[in-house]
């Protein structure tokens, strides 16, 4: 964004400190705007009062992200692509997670299609308090037949509300498909140097976002983008081509970096659009399924870090999906985000007097992992969350945030002695070192659990109730 300090924004806000935005002062609101923690539209007076019209427009301009934000899909699954402001996550944060779209194709038979869409749609993996999921479906026009393509697109759109990418180089096929699903705001792939006129007509008519594609030709890519933009299309995604191996891979990386640098470091608005990457090209090189899925995941790694906003992939094997979605989550974790949860006593399920008491830290990754390990195995229990200032077990033991004294303090505040009879605490295996001290400090019996909370169910079988 153009704005560099909250001061620049403050002067344009109403400066009445009315509090409607949920902040006490306009200055506080301005600070959040610059961190993109609030939306300008949350300042109601600014929107509603005619006299602020000009300020509002100026603010909008100052706040617009360097890379244009393009929305694909509608409703709760709609995905925002782009909208990025920095080249390195530590400069602020990356905002809109790279969207991972998995393919289906129009030569699949009905059952296979149904099963695959179902798998893409329902796939989930728990991670730090939420589920990682897949973002959308890319429909490929393998048949070459517009009618068949449109028919497949219709079936997919009936099976899922995930956003779609319509993939065909044939404008006639894209048109047939758009007649069916234009209202779902699919992303059209792609306008090329050959078909751009017809595709431009289509996207103007159906008002859908479009990918302009010029493999390894950034001049042409820019020229396509400029043409579309001048014709009134702003929801553009750029495809500079993805070459999976060798020098082609080196060049692909260079293209992504140069495009994003032009957008962010140089403010070149005519090329500041989201980028599309096709890791699926790995399948053109590797025949073996595992090799191809691995290489796809490698491309996901490179281009999640280096600036792709949306990807098209093929493998839906867990050994590809787990690392892919986890990496995207990691790279897009806000480095400024507090990593702690509220400490204190958590009640999991419906514990009774004989139920175990587990001890853990308030580091979000630790807490959510442990909590979900316990609840998904239906273990009724108490979880005593120690305030370790958001540090994980091992580092907190090493750094002195997880101590016998802290446990004692939390135990007393929890009034657990009135809730359980056994007066026994279960410590994480990685905190075994402080078990003796904890016993001395609290007067409770201390048992050392397994090093990984995923093993708590096995451990319970052998060790609970305590003899």
């Amino acid at each position, binding site marked *: 964004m153009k704005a560099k300090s909250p001061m620049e924004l*403050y002067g344009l806000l109403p400066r009445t400190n009315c509090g409607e935005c949920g902040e006490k002062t306009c200055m506080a609101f301005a600070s959040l705007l610059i961190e993109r923690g609030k939306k300008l539209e949350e300042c109601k007076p600014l929107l509603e009062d005619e006299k602020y019209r000009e300020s509002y427009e*100026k603010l909008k301009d100052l706040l617009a992200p360097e890379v244009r934000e393009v929305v694909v899909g509608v409703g709760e699954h709609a995905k925002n692509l782009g909208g990025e402001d920095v080249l390195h996550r530590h400069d602020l944060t990356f905002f809109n997670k790279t969207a991972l779209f998995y393919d289906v194709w129009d030569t699949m038979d009905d059952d296979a299609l149904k099963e695959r869409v179902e798998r893409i749609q329902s796939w*989930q993996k728990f991670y730090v308090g939420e589920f990682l999921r897949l973002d959308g479906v890319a429909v490929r026009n*393998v048949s070459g037949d517009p009618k068949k393509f449109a028919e497949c697109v219709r079936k997919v759109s009936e099976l899922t509300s995930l956003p779609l990418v319509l993939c065909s180089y044939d404008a006639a096929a894209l048109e047939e498909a758009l007649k069916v699903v234009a209202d779902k705001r699919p992303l059209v792939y792609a306008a090329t140097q050959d078909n751009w006129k017809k595709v431009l007509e289509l996207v103007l008519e159906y008002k859908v976002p479009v990918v302009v594609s010029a493999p390894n030709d950034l001049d042409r890519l820019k020229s396509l983008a400029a043409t579309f933009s001048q014709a009134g299309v702003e929801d553009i995604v750029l495809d500079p081509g993805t070459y999976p191996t060798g020098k082609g*891979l080196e060049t692909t990386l260079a293209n992504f970096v140069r495009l994003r640098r032009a957008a962010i470091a*140089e403010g070149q608005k005519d090329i500041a659009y989201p980028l599309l990457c096709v890791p699926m090209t790995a399948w*053109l090189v590797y025949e073996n399924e595992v090799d191809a899925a691995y290489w796809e995941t490698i491309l996901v*790694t490179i281009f999640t870090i280096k600036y792709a906003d949306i990807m098209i992939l093929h493998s839906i094997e867990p050994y590809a999906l787990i690392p892919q979605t986890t990496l995207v989550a990691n790279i897009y974790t806000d480095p400024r985000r507090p990593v702690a949860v509220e400490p204190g006593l958590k009640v999991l399920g419906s514990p009774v007097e004989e139920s175990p008491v587990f001890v853990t830290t308030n580091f979000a990754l630790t807490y959510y992992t442990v909590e979900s390990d316990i609840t998904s195995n239906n273990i009724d229990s108490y979880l005593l969350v120690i305030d370790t200032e958001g540090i994980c077990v091992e580092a907190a033991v090493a750094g002195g945030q997880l101590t016998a004294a802290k446990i004692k303090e939390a135990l007393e505040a929890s009034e657990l002695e009135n809730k359980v009879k056994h007066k026994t605490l279960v410590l994480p295996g990685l905190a075994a070192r402080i078990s003796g001290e904890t016993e001395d400090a609290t007067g409770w019996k201390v048992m050392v659990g397994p090093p990984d909370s995923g093993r708590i169910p096995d451990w319970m079988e052998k060790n609970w109730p305590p003899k």
Partner: protein
Amino acid sequence: MGKKLTLEDISKLLEKYGVLEFEDVKIEGDIELKVVGGAGISPELLTTLQAALQSSQMMSQFAIQAAHGLFSILALAKLAGYPVESVLRSFGISAPAPAAPAEVAPPAPAVPEIVIPEELVAAKFEVGKQEWVGQIQEVALGATAADGGSRETVVKLGGEKTLPFYGFEVHNPNPPRIAIDCFDMPIPLAKAVREHYADVMEDPGEWAKKNVKEFGADMVTIHLISTDPLIKDTPPREAAKVVEEVLQAVKVPIIIGGSGNPEKDPAVLEAAAEVAAGERCLIASANLNMDFERIAKAAMNNGHVILSWTQLDINQQKTLNRHLFKLGVKREDLVMDPTTAALGYGLDYAFTNIERMKIAALKGDEELAFPISCGVTNAWGAREAWMKASPIKEDSDWGPREYRGPIFEIVTGLTLALAGGNLFMMMHPGAAAVVKEVTQMLAGFKDVEKAAEFEGWLTWAEK
């Protein structure tokens, strides 16, 4: 209105809005003005402001840097309610032209007319290069006969002039390198790793050989883990024999690691450094919470390179490096290990930590301009890498673990290579090979015979 802006006001404002740093920097000559909107002005205020601006003495104590860029004094004045820009204008002080107002779109016509141009708009894509002032120190590992050692290969690390794999700007001289681990005793390993080493676990020499001959390791790491008092408490002299064995078995440069026990490691690494004198090994590692002086001396006296290890903290890394240089370690004899965390278990910290170090070094911070080593083997700590099935019932099926483990190691390693890692300590042979292959390609050292036709993916069909 009509209030005077005093120095005290300014510092109060700075405090209120979270200004982070004050440094002894003089503001001389031009002060950059960021100017926005405004109204009337009292002449009194105007004088105050002008005086404030011109009194460079008053300003000299402040370089005012806030979390989001430089605050100009005028912006602060503005914040305090002073209509700065009109003051300036009326005084003829030139301020940068205010940002062009956003174009207000004309009301849309009822039926938008679609005009399709005849030709594509002509355009040329251009973008500037990023200029860096710093360069990463090049460090060579392994000494050949000519240099008084017995290695047949030398591994050069570092020497970068730009970010990793930015060959379009300037080619960095040395691609990332892979070291494969071996241990001085059999250790518990994830199943997918263990099966590759089951036959050599009892024999570190054979293990090291296998790493090089079969798995293509550029280097071998021998971890003297049995020296840990809680494991076998092997005496340093005895542990050193294993190092000799490994040096005999392979001709690549080697890395010598202790057990990680801060009390014991100095003695162990000292003994190992002595038996390996002249071989230019990487001694792993010196850490702030141990007798790093003893380790540094052992490395220096026997012609080795030292690994400076800290835990995910740039300032600690600078501190330790500084300590080591004070002891006499030369710049060409130091590699850093800023700590690796696994995919899903802190990889974001490790990535950003390394990326920040590399950028700081390229920007000229000489205390951080050294090659970086990454303990990628840590990836096997992620439960997704080794656990049979998800402990969480709601998860979709995790599938076979023998495919999950290696890809966790690959993604962890490759991520850190993109952050700026130079040396990767790995375990799974397949993962090591893949990381080597892809980083060689990205660095421009490896091509393929036939490039893929990009457009082919759209109509690709499974065979």
